[in-house]
């Protein structure tokens, strides 16, 4: 139900959808370019950008030194002067290195200049654990940037969303940060072939309808929620799965509406629980749907621990379908 009336579609992986979106935008607009570490010949370590350099050349698909702050800054300056850069930050964990350029520069320049300067910058990066990559390569730090006015933050959960949100980000006149779940690159789905398939930023998507409990899930957790919903359905519990698709702007109305309808809500997000995206969403729903709620809004999120290397420990840190099912059942039959 996520993409009605979008014309023809094609089955492709999440990675291919990202690649397609970038290729189409590079073709459409000569001011678009990509820069980052090993984005050209290598096509990134995840091979998501494979082939782009062949079509667009090394002037538009640019390998950089390992200087995240530096090339993000170059992206900001290029964006202010007529280009539409896509900056590739290999792992979301490296956001730590670019926060000044993103937060003190990109996010504020439009406002500080009284609306005169623009920063149409896209940053693509990753989130998600359970790849055995340990503490410095497994974080989901989208809450940080979602906290900062002037930034938009998108979290595609399907190949179609990956295409539609990437294109939206590139065409948007503001800095937009897109987080892709590393584990989803090989997931397949139907993707609209239209070159103008651009999703609006700030509109949630109901990935599954239901009447008994609302599962608000982001990015990697959407599949977890959908799996849980399947199990719940076999117990006669119909879960509604709502994917905000962007944490900033956040589509409060749709989230609240769903919670009002079901009276119960679980927020599922792969960032750490404390001060995570799940907190904002839970706070919004708890307030907005207060008089309709039959139970407290619950949060399932990454544990508040650095991500451990040991596989058995790592798997404990991230919400699973079983966790969602058990939380939903508790909410419904306390």
């Amino acid at each position: 139900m996520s993409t009605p009336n979008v014309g023809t579609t094609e089955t492709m992986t999440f990675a291919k959808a990202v690649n397609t979106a970038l290729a189409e935008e590079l073709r459409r607009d000569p001011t678009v370019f990509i820069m980052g570490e090993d984005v050209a010949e290598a096509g990134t370590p995840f091979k998501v950008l494979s082939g782009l350099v062949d079509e667009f050349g090394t002037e538009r698909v640019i390998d950089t030194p390992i200087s995240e702050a530096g090339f993000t800054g170059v992206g900001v300056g290029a964006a202010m002067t007529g280009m539409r850069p896509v900056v590739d930050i290999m792992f979301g964990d490296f956001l730590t290195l670019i926060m000044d350029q993103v937060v003190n520069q990109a996010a504020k320049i439009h406002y500080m200049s009284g609306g005169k300067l623009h920063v149409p910058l896209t940053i693509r990066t990753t989130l998600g654990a359970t790849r055995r990559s340990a503490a410095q390569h497994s974080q989901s730090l989208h809450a940080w940037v979602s906290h900062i006015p002037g930034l938009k933050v998108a979290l595609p959960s399907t190949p179609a969303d990956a295409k539609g949100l990437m294109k939206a980000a590139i065409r948007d006149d503001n800095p937009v940060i897109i987080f892709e779940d590393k584990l989803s690159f090989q997931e397949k789905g139907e993707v609209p072939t239209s070159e103008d398939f651009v999703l609006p930023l700030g509109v949630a998507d109901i990935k599954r309808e239901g009447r008994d409990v609302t599962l608000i899930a982001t990015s990697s957790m959407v599949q977890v929620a959908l799996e849980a919903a399947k199990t719940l359905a076999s117990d006669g519990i119909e879960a509604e799965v709502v994917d905000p698709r962007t944490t900033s702007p956040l589509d409060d109305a749709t989230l609240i509406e769903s919670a009002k309808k079901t009276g119960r809500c679980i927020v599922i997000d792969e960032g750490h629980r404390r001060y995570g995206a799940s907190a904002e969403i839970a706070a919004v729903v708890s307030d907005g749907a207060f008089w309709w709620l039959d139970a407290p809004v619950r949060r399932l999120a990454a544990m508040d621990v650095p991500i451990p290397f040991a596989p058995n420990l790592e798997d404990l840190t991230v919400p699973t379908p079983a966790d969602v099912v058990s939380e939903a059942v508790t909410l419904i039959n306390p």
Partner: protein
Amino acid sequence: MTPPKTTTPKKPWTRAAALRAYEQMMRIRVFEEHANDLYLSAKMPGLTHMYTGQEAVAVGICEHLTADDTITSTHRGHGHCVAKGAAYPEMFAELLGREAGYCRGKGGSMHIADQENGNLGANAIVGGSAGIATGSGFSAKARGNGDVSVCFFGEGALGQGLLFEVMNMAQLWKLPVIYVCENNMYNEYTHYSEVTAGEILGRPQAFGMRTAHVNGQDINEVHTTAKDLIDRARKGEGPAFMLCDTYRYHGHHVGDIARDYYRSKDEEEEWKSTRDPINLFTAWLTSNFKITEDDLASIEAQIRSEAEQAVDFALNAPYPDDSEVDQHVYA
């Protein structure tokens, strides 16, 4: 700290150009006299950092630039702003937080920008604009329009890793960026030699970047040297780093009054009396062109009257409407 001796050609400018350079330096000086007064009389909110004493750097360089060339500036940014062509009324209005300001009062002294004249903005993060300037150079190169980008920063910004990251890229990609280090010898309240190991110029040279070292109080020297570096950059020959020895006359910011604990009155006096960029240029102008002290005085008088009008304008200009508070967060 001793710049290499350079021989300035006798006449780096035409008479008209020289007068304009003088005018621009004076424009900065007078702007700041008024800004200082506004602060001291509690009419200006916040605080501000004075550029006075460093005028020859901004003007000597910006006189080579068109409105399509860009600059990035610092917390000490009034000089760059004026030199790049900004007008008094919008500048004063901005410092006072009025809607008529360049940034509708939302930026203030530390964030003043003037897009139309190619000033991409002051920056309150030391070194924070190095990426922006380099990115602007990237744009110019991508579009092959021959524009250059100038990144002004104080020697304190040499402490920021970002600068090294972007200098490496600028040199790799031969971007038309001029990195202008204004060494006024102080990082706030600390002498730069206490926090800066080795040689300043060794830093850009490590990347193979062209460098120059000039007396930043001598606008002729600044102007002549900048010309070569900017021409090179326009031709696609790559970036350059220009080290300018200079001095700020005021405290680090307007509130930094009792400062003998880090800088002696004698040192200040010496710079003001023997190396003032406007005085030096005045002497040169009057001895190299048919220009009299009176000619210069009338330029100054004109500027002073503009300044007074602009201050009046700004003081009477309205603050932005309260409804503006959440406008311009997103484009």
